[in-house]
């Protein structure tokens, strides 16, 4: 048998693996092959995916809007409005036109990203943590713990997300002196309190798959405690589906926030978000359609790019789809 590493260096990644398997007990040549984990493998796969690159660029732009909106608005302030410019159409001075109060729609659209993206990220983080935790507990311990947690999940799962959101938000109306972060926090809570159930179900089923894997049994046999088994062996091996669903649902939460704000329940003025802008534009849709179009377009692109990112991540993490 010839040196497997020499042939492997030239061959495709799949062959490298096959060769190392057969290349029985030969030591590797230093530097010929970098250690590869599931995650580094997925990253390698992602970098070549067009969908990932497109969605990543878009998300990067949205993140810049969130953190440094002033960079993209050339220093314009979203709250500086001039009533005499009310509902003027797009022009070179204001690319997206002016809204009912004579505020620049472009500037407001850029600033609106902050609230929308923040709601998306924090709602996803919240549901991932809560749902993931409940899912791990239910899946790992099974038995009556699983029964109780699963029934609890079912109950929450039965309440529609938007209905629950409306219920929570209308019970705790915001006053004039709530700031952006309190507003965002409230919406995150309203979405998260019902949104965690799907995360729980996904985490639970993937933990059940991993729980009986030989390496978990082996870890226990070699003296690892339950906590350690969960942290080191179960969670890292069952996280992939959760990450995929989380990325996709991030877009969903941005959409849900817009829906709630559109209904006048989510974020409240003076907080700017795409949802509130669409709400503002609704009465004037026939006179000034651009007021509706631009924030709605940004919203759609944001939701789409997170869903595309989720798709790309799923393809990279699931070897069966390759």
């Amino acid at each position, binding site marked *: 048998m010839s040196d497997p590493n020499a042939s492997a260096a030239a061959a495709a990644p799949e062959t490298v*693996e096959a060769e*190392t*398997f*057969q*290349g*029985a*007990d*030969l*030591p*590797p040549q*230093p530097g010929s*092959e970098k*250690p*590869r*984990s*599931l*995650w580094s493998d997925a990253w390698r796969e992602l970098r070549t995916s067009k969908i990932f690159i497109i969605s990543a660029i878009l998300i990067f732009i949205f993140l810049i809007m969130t953190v440094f909106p002033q960079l993209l608005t050339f220093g314009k302030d979203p709250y500086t409005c001039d009533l005499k410019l009310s509902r003027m159409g797009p022009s070179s001075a204001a690319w997206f036109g002016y809204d009912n109060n004579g505020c620049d729609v472009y500037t407001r659209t850029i600033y609106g990203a902050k609230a929308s993206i923040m709601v998306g990220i924090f709602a996803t983080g919240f549901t991932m943590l809560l749902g993931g935790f409940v899912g791990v507990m239910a899946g790992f311990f099974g038995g009556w713990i699983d029964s109780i947690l699963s029934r609890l999940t079912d109950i929450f799962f039965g309440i529609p997300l938007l209905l629950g959101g409306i219920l929570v938000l209308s019970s705790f109306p915001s006053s004039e002196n709530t700031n952006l972060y309190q507003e965002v926090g409230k919406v995150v809570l309203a979405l998260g309190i019902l949104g965690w159930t799907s995360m729980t179900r996904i985490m639970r089923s993937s933990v059940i798959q991993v729980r009986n*894997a*030989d*390496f978990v*049994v*082996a*870890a*226990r*046999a*070699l*003296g*690892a*405690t339950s906590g*350690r088994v969960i942290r*080191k*062996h179960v969670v*890292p*091996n069952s996280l992939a589906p959760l990450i995929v669903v989380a990325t996709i649902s991030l877009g969903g939460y941005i959409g849900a926030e817009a829906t709630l704000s559109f209904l006048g329940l989510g974020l409240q003025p003076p907080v700017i978000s795409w949802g509130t802008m669409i709400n503002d534009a609704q009465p004037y849709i026939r006179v000034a359609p651009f007021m509706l179009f631009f924030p709605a377009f940004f919203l759609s692109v944001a939701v789409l790019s997170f869903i595309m990112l989720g798709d790309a991540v799923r393809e990279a993490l699931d070897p069966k789809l390759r």
Partner: protein
Amino acid sequence: MTEHLLEVDDLFVEFRTRDGVAAAINGVSYSLDAGQTLAVLGESGSGKSVTAQTIMGILDMPPGFITGGRILYKGKDLLKMPESERQKIRGAEISMIFQDSLSALNPVFTVGDQIAEMFQVHRGMSKKEGMARAVDLMEQVRIPAAKERVKDYPHQFSGGMRQRIMIAMAISLDPKVLIADEPTTALDVTVQAQIMELLQDLQRERNMGMILITHDLGVVAGVADKIAVMYAGRIVESADVLELYGKPRHPYTQGLLDSMPRVDSKGEELYAIKGLPPSLLRLPPGCNFNPRCPYKQDLCLQEVPQSVEVAPHHMSACHFWQEVARD
């Protein structure tokens, strides 16, 4: 009676399934001393792995239930210990290696991480010290270029090398007892021999007691001191290796030995024990082996044979062991 390092005494384990109660272990007893190798032989489903899992305390409960017996380690009953105390024994005092080393290693961490973890958890070492010990151990289990390979992931190793890593993890804390559950079954023959040799060397160096669970008579011959043959959750015969191979006193053992291919029997049809192992849900009455036994008589259908000492340290559970001896 002298105290053994590990003693399994009249152990009963059953699985309560939807289809009924499966009697997996029906009164198994064996003992192990330091530096000794006990081979537990048997077909799939004979209860050899379940016994090992019960000793380790990794049996799935439920559906598994321990319905009787004791497991004494250094004179203390493991089954009566609180979980926290057993935790300290697992891995550090009694350790185990598994059949399929690819699935027994965590795919998302490097092998070095996993070996080092043993030292971090049980010895409170830092990551750096743990990694240094991991390289040490990988050298001890004869993995070439251990320093570089410590940062590799399990799937980058060949089957034999992975089993060595599993062994390195299992012996990392100097356990007194090592249970090897079919350690060579997933490997090809040449690698099997290397792994068995390694296990034997490590055992001698460290004076460990080793329980070798296997269905491969060839693997056992060179390594074991004592053999216990299991059938349908019972030990049907146990003896020292040479005694058992030379003078089997149970028809099942005899059948197993006869079914081994030999160089001098080339061209002849291979002997096979007729029938299949019984379902654990419906064990045949009397002697469990009676449906397949060439020596079967009416007594075998009625009475469970007791284990009798047919020669010094040689036990057989057959009503007609004397007739087996005559053949």
